[in-house]
């Protein structure tokens, strides 16, 4: 095992001649410490080009078992150079040398990634639909599936806006568990007449949502409150209702699955934003119960859930006088049943 490691390291350094003279020192580091701590020391005597730095860190991420080694190294270094992806750097800049400060920064950020910190936290931002949002631990990092959830809501609300329902004072959307604010801010960004209320029970999330709203200039149409659907139900109804749409990406993982998560998720993200109790339905149930009291007639509830949930929710809506009708299950881009849409009937 060690031989393989050393050989691949050696192969790599032969491509990267300026570092060759530091090889011995590096080898020493590797053999004395465990693999996880195998951080290459910051070369002080020589400088690396962008390309060399990317390759070096890709190799190290590979050796230490960090997931997505190549992309991680590319995204981090691109971020330090002020661009989103390395592709947007011209070929000339790829062979430019990094400054000492950039080298230090690279080493600092990549070391964080070595500890399995998600890239989004390392570079402190990520893209969601058209927006670039600030990301900070432990606030939940929005997943690509949620981009589709926003698409579903947008499709309906755009129709409403078109038919003139928007002229009502209440063209409002409520989001439960806003995290970084991704859903609400995307909706506000696409629908200039919409107002939104975002709730989260975590102060970090509330702060981050406000920060993101400010930097996108959307703060005027957004209210953010520190509230918990489990305990503050009555207050939420009093303060927010009625709304035209209710949207949520609630914690929906089953508690038993929490142990099998990748370290990126498990070590860094807020468990309260992931763990939905033994059946993953704890928060979902509260939202379902609360929805009829919050929504206008024909107002819709949009949920992102685990693939085992849509059938359960459909049964739940059928089984009682909930005031909610199950409209449909939508599938995500991988073909999994991922989104539930329910509508408040026009009855009492």
């Amino acid at each position, binding site marked *: 095992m060690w031989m393989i490691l050393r050989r691949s390291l050696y192969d790599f350094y032969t491509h990267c001649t300026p570092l060759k003279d530091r090889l011995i020192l590096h080898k020493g580091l590797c053999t004395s410490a465990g693999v996880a701590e195998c951080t290459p020391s910051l070369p002080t005597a020589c400088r690396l080009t962008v390309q060399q730095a990317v390759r070096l860190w890709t190799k190290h991420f590979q050796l230490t078992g960090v997931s997505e080694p190549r992309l991680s190294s590319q995204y981090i270094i691109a971020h330090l150079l002020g661009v989103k992806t390395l592709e947007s750097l011209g*070929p000339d800049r790829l062979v430019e040398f990094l400054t000492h400060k950039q080298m230090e920064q690279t080493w600092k950020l990549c070391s964080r990634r070595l500890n399995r910190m998600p890239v989004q936290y390392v570079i402190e931002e990520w893209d969601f639909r058209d927006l670039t949002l600030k990301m900070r631990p432990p606030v939940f990092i929005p997943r690509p599936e949620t981009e589709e959830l926003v698409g579903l809501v947008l499709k309906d609300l755009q129709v409403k806006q078109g038919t003139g329902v928007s002229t009502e004072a209440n063209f409002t959307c409520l989001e439960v568990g806003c995290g970084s604010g991704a859903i609400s801010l995307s909706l506000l960004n696409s629908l200039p007449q919409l107002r939104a209320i975002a709730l989260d029970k975590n102060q970090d999330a509330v702060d981050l949502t406000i920060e993101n709203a400010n930097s996108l200039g959307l703060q005027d149409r957004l209210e953010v409150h520190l509230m918990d659907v489990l305990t503050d139900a009555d207050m939420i109804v009093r303060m927010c209702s009625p709304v035209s749409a209710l949207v949520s990406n609630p914690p*929906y993982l089953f508690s038993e699955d929490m142990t099998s998560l990748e370290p990126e998720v498990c070590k860094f993200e807020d468990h309260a934003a992931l763990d939905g109790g033994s059946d993953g339905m704890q928060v979902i149930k509260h939202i379902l119960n609360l929805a009829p009291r919050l929504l206008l007639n024909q107002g819709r509830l949009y949920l992102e859930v685990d693939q085992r949930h849509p059938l359960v929710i459909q049964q739940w809506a059928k089984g009682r006088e909930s005031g909610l009708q199950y409209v449909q299950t939508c599938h995500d881009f991988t073909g999994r049943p991922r989104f539930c849409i329910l509508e408040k009937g026009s009855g009492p």
Partner: protein
Amino acid sequence: MAFTQAVKMHLVFCRSKIPSFQLWSTVIAQRDYHRVLYGRPQNPTSKCCPKIRAMHLTHPLMITKLLSVDEIFARRRLQDYLKNMETEYSNSLKVVNNIEGQQSDELRVKRTRISVIAPLIQYIRELKTKEKEFAETEILLKDDDPDMCKLAVIERETYQKAIHEIRQKILSHLIPEEESDMSDLILEVTAGVGGQEAMLFTAEVFDMYQSFAGHRGWGFDILEYMKSEIGGLRHASASICGPESYKRMKFEAGVHRVQRVPKTEKQGRVHTSTMTVAVLPQPTEISFTINSKDLRIETKRASGAGGQHVNTTDSAVRIVHLPTGVVSECQQDRSQLKNKEKAMTFLRAKLYSIRLEEETSKRYTARKVQIGSKGRSEKIRTYNFPQDRITDHRIGKTVHDVQEFLLGEELLWEMNTTLLDFSNQETLMDILGEND
């Protein structure tokens, strides 16, 4: 026929690796369109029908000269053509006016036809008046009074200018807009023969078109960019949108050849390498739809549980169109949704170009063998660095200063405009039947 066909051929056949398939149930309601526009039903074997003037084999340099407006007007064919138009116009007018109130398809076509030719007739009449006035000044020239003579000379000049302008208007009126001329496009560049050097050149050409788009005020959105080791470009694609973008860019499709001493060459020898440019018209949502059931979307998130379980930064998207096996990929953006949208744009353009090929090849089954074997490898332009020149082989035009040309500004525009002029002239000759 030479040059325009060469262009078309590249547009369509650069992408024709996929075998023919009988998928498209397209509605081509062009019969009436042709009767209206050209006053005769579409004849698929006729060379002079502009709608389908596409697919013959090229013999470069068949047209050696770009004719001036006046030279074209001096041709009898044009004069005959204009005369025919006038006769047709007055005849149609008579027919329509005589039978009031009746409705038939024949009449409807005639009416539309009248409204189509009307502006042309207007120009022809204007031209005639001006020509008459011009002739009248001839008498004044012979006048004894020198002041009168001077005046006559000045007047003649203004008339001449006016005549020239009207003639130009008539000619541009005769050249029909192609359906796809109005659409946006997808540009694809691929390195050809020549290894790393070809890839370096591909990157330069791609940059050239990017700044060309900037220079013309077109939008340029990179869909795919696959770098090589030393900063070259294996393959890239971009979506370009803006007024006249396709009308112009279609002339850039084909094999571009570079001759120079590569950076990688140690002994100072000149190498020849190639790269290919493909230009695909980008269909609008309305004109071309894809059934979402026919698509398979592949992402890194397909395995495992997805959703909140996993956090990935690999947002690459690959879309497979199942009935045809056409694949499109995008990993340009950090947002997976954006990548998906871009991949879809690209896929649509690919499928659309296959459909176009399908249609065109149906019309030209007889010539297909010839085209299939030669069209793709036709080189259209050479960038010769030692001689500092660029030569377009389709029209035999050479310009100097390669560096300046690669900036994608005036020189490229000049070359492109000449190509457009040639193409227009050819179209015109087709309509007049001069190439028969």
